[in-house]
């Protein structure tokens, strides 16, 4: 659906985006991650045709955004960063305008589509209020409604949950997930929980380049403690356990923290069952066993702190 090929953007002497290439298929929800200023928004602006790339190009549904901008722009819905909207209009007027711009002229289609997105985004109650008087959450939903008005095959969203309260964030995530099956969705964020709960693919960019492009699971695998097991001790001397852990082939490093031992597997293998068996047969004085928490945030930090 979306093909990005060697996109480069220079602002003066600064290279904001440096040869970014990726592809997005139907059913994908791709999370675009990166520290502030990494080039996420710039990349999205080039994909949507708002900015002209210095080099490279993007195609949406096979249409080159530079050569056939109109055909390409028909296929996606775009929610820019901070959701800019025509403040003096009401949601109803605004969506009517977008329908006109998208060539949805037929009265029945028009009303049907507007009603559909108003329902999805829960805008019925505020449809006659000027957008400038609405809360941030509602405004974001108006932005979302405008992006999906023509039921596009691709959805591109720049920080869709930015500035929303936790409930609204949850609501927007639910909304995005519910649309995932028949669309290709590209969204940027710097909230890692969000990508973990929604995306099936993650691209991390830093200083304009892609440094990781994989599924959340694969990304988790990069964590130094992926699949590590924590053994909780009860004031016992961990010496014997440590030694028997060392004898196990699959266990690499053994880390001692207060009242627990952490066994890190070689190659990220699952050693849960193995340790459970060993603990039982050797009668280790442990009071509990659990998997070490592997947070994407830590992987992200490792990857982006250069």
């Amino acid at each position, binding site marked *: 659906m979306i093909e990005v090929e060697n996109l480069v953007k220079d602002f003066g002497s600064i290279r904001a985006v440096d040869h970014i290439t990726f592809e997005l298929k139907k059913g994908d929800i791709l999370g675009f991650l990166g520290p502030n200023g990494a080039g996420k928004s710039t990349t999205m602006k080039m994909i949507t045709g708002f900015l*002209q790339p210095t080099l490279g190009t993007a195609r949406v549904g096979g249409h080159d955004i530079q050569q056939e901008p109109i055909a390409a*722009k028909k296929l996606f819905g775009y929610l820019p960063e901070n959701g800019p909207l025509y403040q003096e209009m009401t949601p109803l007027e605004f969506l009517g305008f977008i329908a006109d711009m998208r060539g949805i002229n037929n009265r029945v289609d028009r009303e049907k589509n507007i009603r559909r997105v108003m329902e999805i985004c829960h805008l019925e109650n505020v449809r006659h209020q000027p957008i400038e008087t609405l809360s941030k959450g509602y405004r974001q939903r108006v932005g979302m409604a405008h992006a999906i008005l023509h039921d596009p095959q691709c959805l591109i969203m720049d920080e869709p949950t930015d500035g929303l309260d936790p409930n609204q964030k949850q609501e927007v995530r639910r909304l995005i997930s519910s649309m995932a099956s028949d669309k290709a969705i590209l969204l940027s964020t710097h909230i890692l929980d969000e990508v973990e709960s929604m995306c099936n693919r993650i691209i991390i960019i830093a200083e304009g380049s892609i440094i990781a492009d994989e599924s959340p699971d694969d990304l988790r695998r990069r964590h130094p403690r992926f699949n590590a097991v924590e053994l909780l001790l009860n004031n016992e001397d961990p010496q014997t356990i440590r030694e028997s852990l060392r004898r196990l082939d699959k266990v690499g490093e053994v880390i001692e923290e207060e009242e627990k031992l952490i066994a890190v597997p070689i190659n990220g293998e699952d050693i849960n069952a193995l340790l459970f068996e060993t603990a039982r047969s050797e009668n280790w004085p442990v009071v509990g066993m659990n998997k070490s928490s592997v947070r994407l945030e830590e992987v992200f930090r490792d990857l982006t702190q250069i």
Partner: protein
Amino acid sequence: MQSILAIFKREFMGYFRSPVGYVFLIVFLVSTIGLTWFLGGFFDTNDASMARFYTFLPWIFLFLVPAVGMRLWAEEKKSGTWELLFTLPISVTQAVFGKFLAGWAFISVGILLTFSMPMTVAYLGDPDWGPVFSGYLGGILMAGAFLSICSLTSSLTENQVISFVLSVVICLILVLLGWSVFSDLMLAAHFPVWLVDGLSNFSFITHFNPMVRGLVTLRDMLFFVSLGAFCLFVNVLTLER
């Protein structure tokens, strides 16, 4: 065409969604008619014509058209909505045209609302209707040329004040060049006649005055149209990044 119409509709209605539009119309009507009556000495001329009314038009446009035009693009840039606009399936040319036409139509509404003036003239005397209509035609064309300059300057900045000042300065130059007082000054300063004449050809007043007198020539109309087309063309170029 469809998208030009959509932008036109949104933009035109936009003038009436905020007080700005009403303030403009009131100030425009009060100043055009007020100046004609009080400063222009409408009664003293003892002439059933609109000449006095038209004399003030370029000078009023000088301030009021930039007030309408300054927001055209500067506001979109400031609020970020141009990102929304230019990621919709339309071309920059369509957007520029739609917005320009809306502003032009809005100013034209203001111009046409001065109909009480010719009606008064007709009530008091027996005017020659030719110059009345050609003056209105010239006024509307001139407003379009003014507005195209404002649309261009508006696209250069996201600050409406800068946009306003810039367009007033450019329009002022284009008005002054054809103003007789200014031409006399230049001649008194020993500028060659050919230069003064040549420069005055670029003025709004030079091309507006014949129309006020009832003389509609292709040359004058082409001046306004080509100036407008040129500014809008550059306008499109500035927006295509």
